């Protein structure tokens, strides 16, 4: 125990010497490969019992982070503690952590029963037969126990992989894009299934994914990762509604980012000159340092109307738009509107049936409520993360 205390002291007080934290904690975690740095000085706390998602595009370092937690990769620097115990240098087979691999990595020479029993047999604990039966029952595969993995469908294999990891009752369950290989419909039902199981067993789940919708559906907390660092962390709604960086704004859903000059920072309101139109943004939604910034607004928060039409959006009204593209998707209509300064903005309008659908070439006005807008740092790339959404 004294060793643990030393480690924590060595980590320094500024890095949170909160010894009572019993979840998974990473401090200054860094992984350098020969030609690039996959993970840079990562600090992360995952509370016990949470469903935590690491979200990011491929190559952002999320899988490397997961592999370091699993013990399959050793960090170049930094520490990993679990329940107050330093596991940074522990071997993979000594950690109370199990992984559901992206490829499932089921043992092809063992049947389903033996695949699930593998961990229990290695640790020589518990009543293997009963435990495996109970676990196969949980994932509804008891009838397949004597089949080989190759005889099962993708969704069934996925459930075997989950059962094989869960049966060991790890302190942390790592899921490496576990649904990536499934088709959309199956993925949806597995998402619900996973969430149900997590609630049932109450273990800490860390879910790595590049699918923002999946992360938002399932996780309590999402950490958005980009180029080896965490861009922003928080509850799904918080991340979506109040992104702190252009990367988060673009990667999580879609955003309109419009260049503007900050004119006045006044109490809880910031006034911005956006291409000649004065708009305001709440201070707590402002994440820009200089005197310039990107005004951000989600397409579904933008209201579209005929010129001069009064819309329910006091404050920010931008005239002079021309509809350049209309796509009718059923539940909503998506417009592209060319603004006077040449930029095309996206607008989603719900098909409530009460409003007419505009046509290409119509002259329109856009507006939004100030409390929905956010302001981002001008130094950041306005297109960061935009094309990386779903690959």
């Amino acid at each position, binding site marked *: 125990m004294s060793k643990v205390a030393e480690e924590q002291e060595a980590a320094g007080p500024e890095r949170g010497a909160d010894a009572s934290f019993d979840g998974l904690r990473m401090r200054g975690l860094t992984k350098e490969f020969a030609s690039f740095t996959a993970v840079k000085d990562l600090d992360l706390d995952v509370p016990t019992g949470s469903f935590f998602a690491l979200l990011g595009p491929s190559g952002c370092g999320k899988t490397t982070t997961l592999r370091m937690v*699993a*013990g*399959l990769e050793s960090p170049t620097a930094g520490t990993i503690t679990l329940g107050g115990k330093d596991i940074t240098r522990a*071997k*993979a*087979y*000594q950690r109370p*952590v*199990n*992984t559901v*691999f992206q*490829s499932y*990595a*089921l*043992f*092809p*020479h063992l049947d389903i*029963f*033996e695949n699930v*029993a*593998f*961990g229990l047999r*290695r*640790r020589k604990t518990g009543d*293997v*037969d009963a435990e495996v039966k109970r676990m196969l029952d949980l994932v509804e595969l008891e009838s397949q126990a*004597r089949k*080989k993995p*190759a005889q099962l469908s993708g969704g069934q294999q996925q459930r075997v992989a989950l059962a*094989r*990891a869960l049966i*060991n009752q790890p302190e942390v369950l790592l899921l490496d894009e576990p649904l990536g290989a499934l088709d959309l419909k199956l993925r949806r039902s597995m998402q619900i299934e996973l969430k149900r199981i997590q609630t049932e067993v109450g273990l800490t789940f860390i879910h790595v994914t590049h699918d923002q919708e999946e992360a938002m559906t399932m996780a309590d907390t999402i950490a958005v990762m980009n180029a080896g660092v965490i861009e922003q962390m928080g509850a799904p709604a918080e991340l979506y509604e109040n992104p702190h960086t252009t990367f988060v704004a673009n990667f999580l859903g879609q955003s309109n980012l419009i260049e503007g000059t900050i004119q006045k920072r006044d109490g809880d309101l910031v006034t911005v000159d956006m291409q000649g139109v004065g708009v305001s943004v709440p201070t707590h939604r402002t994440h820009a340092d200089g005197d310039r910034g990107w005004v951000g607004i989600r397409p579904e928060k933008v209201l579209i109307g005929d010129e001069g039409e009064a819309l329910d959006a006091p404050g920010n009204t931008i005239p002079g738009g021309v509809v350049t593209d209309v796509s009718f998707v059923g539940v909503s209509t998506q417009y592209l509107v060319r603004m006077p300064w040449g930029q095309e903005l996206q607008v989603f309008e719900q098909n409530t049936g009460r409003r007419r659908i505009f046509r290409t070439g119509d002259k329109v006005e856009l507006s939004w409520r100030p409390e929905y807008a956010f302001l981002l740092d001008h130094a950041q790339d306005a297109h960061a993360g935009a094309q990386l959404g779903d690959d």
Partner: protein
Amino acid sequence: MAEQGLRKSTTGYLLLLPGLLWLVLFFVIPFYSLVAASLYDPAGSDFRGYQMTYHWQNYTDALRDYGKPEGWNHPFWLILAAVIGVAVTVGLLLRARRGTSQTHSVGSYVGYGFVGALVGMAVLYPIFKALFVGGAPMVLSPLLRSLLYGALATAFCLLLGYVLAYAIAFKSGRWKTLMLVLVIAPFFTSFLVRTLSWKLLLGDDSVITHVFQALHLIGSNGQLLYTPFAVIAGLTYNFLPFMVLPLFASLDKIDYRLIEASRDLYANPIVGFFKVTWPLSLPGVISGTLLTFIPAVGDYINAELLGSTNTRMIGSVIQSLFTDANDYPAASALSVMLMVLIVGMVLVYVRRAGTEELL
């Protein structure tokens, strides 16, 4: 539709035709003449010609002359029965081990163990007795010696080859291709030349011999050449690539993520090897051991060049019966027996190793 189907099936047969013709010409016909020759009247000769007399005694005579160890006064079939008994027992034990929790209870393990012990004792007791009759080691017959040397060379090949193949498959990185080329590099020179060079390596004045003498592994005037050691070493060397290549093919195919998964599931490297890597490499182990054992048992070059009259293998006996003694019936009978024996052992081995259950 039917016409198309017919055409499709005839295409298959047409494609098979060259291979079938080749087999008929160069395997079926010579094999038929070999079996026929093994039943000729042994009194025949090149001058008087041979007569087909269905002389089955050729087989028992050959077994008596080349199968029975010197000093063994029991019938030869006892030895064969013992060998087959051991093979079956080992197979049963392997099967029982692989069965784990499925159908085998503790009782069945005890049962297998009991049968194994009985068979083992029945086999080992007379062998030990025969090996050391009056303190002098038994002189093996060429047939048994071939099986023993072949099995030992296969075992050494497996040990050396597995390590090598494992290293090439998992640890060689960008040197993989080069290392594979090096494995087959010996094939660029002739089998005979390579074996002859071992005569130099193991000669009385060679470094290796001196090292063995200095380490007191052999007497100060001891020899390496013309000993069983030399023959087995030669066999091991010559057939190593046949072991390494199929092993490499099997190991290289193993998804490394499976090994990571075993670590993740609490298997340390040793347990992970025996529970994941080894079972997944079994197809390579089986084809490698077959590719090594079969030619090694019938090989005569190594025994001829590196051995002495005390290390004669069945291959050199057959060769000298054919070319020196012109005793075609005996040579043919031995060849057929060797073939049947090997095919029988291979069948038992492959069935027991359970290739059908792999993947």
